[in-house]
């Protein structure tokens, strides 16, 4: 009741004395529509240019299904690796002091700043059979470059900062005293983590996971160099879109794009809802 009343009041209240509301909001909407919304609509409209039957035929073709399975599967594995190591990295960066900590902390953002093509050729050079790491793995019978494993490596690199940067602020706010209280009451380190720390962290962990996953699904530049790009085996969905575009198969390219966009947007709204829920929960405590 109280909220409805305040909303109604807000509606009647003058906007204040600051100028420029119409200009800035109008420009924002215009720019957003021209550069983002209208071009994005083109994808949905073009994907149905061949009719529903054709759309369905394209997205259920074995090669398309294999590429979607690979893109989403590899992203899932990479995001999981990032959750595990991202938790360790952010914990270490927040709780402990050690030499060059500031430098290492700044380096975590490297995957944001390094162009994806550069990351792609660097990882390929490292994991190729004659590379620094690849040459050591080859005698063990493990090949990373030009296999799906290489895709996971590239996607892990790309997603690394998302988990760390989502967890850090939450860990910084987490009270050390709570753990100390748990320890003084006889909880082991593992018990303290599972019962005290993890419940406070999991919304941030899930958000970081979802952000890393969403980024990985669409990733192109870092993957195509290391993937080998064999149809049915190591061909990611974005590459298939590029292939179809080069053959002027717009209906096919847009059909795959629609599947990816719908899944990505659903994920994004999920992340937003999760963050809203977590922040209200945090506020109530």
């Amino acid at each position, binding site marked *: 009741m109280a909220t409805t009343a305040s909303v109604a009041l807000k509606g009647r209240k003058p906007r204040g004395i600051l100028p420029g509301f119409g200009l800035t909001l109008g420009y*924002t909407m215009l720019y957003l529509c021209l550069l983002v919304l209208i071009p994005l609509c083109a994808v949905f409209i073009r994907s149905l240019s061949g009719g529903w039957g054709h759309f369905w035929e394209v997205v259920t073709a074995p090669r398309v299904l294999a590429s979607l399975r690979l893109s989403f599967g590899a992203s899932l594995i990479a995001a999981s690796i990032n959750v595990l190591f991202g938790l360790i990295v952010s914990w270490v960066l927040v709780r402990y002091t050690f030499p060059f900590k500031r430098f290492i902390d700044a380096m975590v953002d490297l995957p944001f700043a390094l162009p994806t093509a550069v990351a792609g050729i660097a990882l390929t050079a490292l994991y190729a059979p004659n590379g620094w790491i690849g040459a050591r793995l080859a005698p063990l019978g493990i090949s990373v470059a030009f296999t799906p494993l290489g895709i996971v490596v590239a996607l892990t690199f790309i997603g690394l900062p998302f988990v760390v940067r989502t967890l850090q602020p939450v860990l910084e706010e987490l009270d050390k005293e709570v753990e100390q209280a748990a320890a003084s009451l006889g909880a082991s380190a593992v018990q303290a983590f599972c019962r005290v720390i993890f419940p406070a962290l999991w919304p941030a962990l899930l958000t970081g996971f979802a952000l890393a996953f969403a980024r990985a699904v669409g990733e*192109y530049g870092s993957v195509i160099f290391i993937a080998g790009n064999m149809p049915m085996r190591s061909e990611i969905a974005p590459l298939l879109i590029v292939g179809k575009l080069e053959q002027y198969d717009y209906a096919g390219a847009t059909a795959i794009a629609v599947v990816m966009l719908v899944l990505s947007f659903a994920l994004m709204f999920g992340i937003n809802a999760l963050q809203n829920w977590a922040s209200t929960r945090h506020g109530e405590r």
Partner: protein
Amino acid sequence: MGRLLLIVTALLFLGLFLVLPLLAVFAQALAKGFGAYYIAISQPMAWAAVKLTLLVAGIAVPLNLIFGVAAAWAVAKFDFRGKSALITLIDLPFAVSPVIAGMIFILVFGTHGWFGGFLRAHHIRVVFAVPGIVLATIFVTFPFIARELIPVMQAQGKDDEETALSLGATGWQTFWRVTLPNIRWGLLYGVLLCNARAMGEFGAVSVVSGHIRGVTNTMPLHVEILYNEYNYTAAFAVASLLALLALLTLAGKSILEWRQPELRHAARRPRDRTRRVNT
């Protein structure tokens, strides 16, 4: 003991995934000595790529800067219906694969696109030309500045501006003399991140560029061409310039975060409105 184990694990993971790839770029670039490196980066095609990259970032970043300031002003200083929907829409390009970001402009401006006939009749090339690269770059870097500025402006509130206006300043004077100095570090932070992505974008630009040497090749695309020609030293030489740009970006980012600690996680938690007390 547990503490040491965690630190070592974290450092090994970061070393393996961050430091080694970075070292590999410079090691490969200098594998044949400084002479070969210098020859590789002084090729005319490499310079054409550098110039195009600077041109594209020089157009895309200022346009997104103007948009970012306008969007942040509207969102942070006023209450209106659909505000959170607008913020979500601004973030939308982050959820779009770079390849799809390039494709949408082919669908609109390509030969078989919505405006294809019109553009051909007037001899205007957008796709497979510089304008298409600029459009794709604007799309992928669209949210960067806006999402840094919105939390900064929200935290600052509107008391300073209202004071300036009540003392007789015009709207523009208020903006230039009061708002802009208040948000300058946040602005610079957003520009830095936006620029790094604009200069390094690969997927979206690759789709719209048409890969025409010396004409539509940005630096990341030039790296790909050299790499696919097995010209590894030259590919890594150009890549090392981009890696240096990335390191400079990280250094600049750290300096700004040290000056303004609240920038650090600002964009990650837009709903924490820590109100600054105005003095």
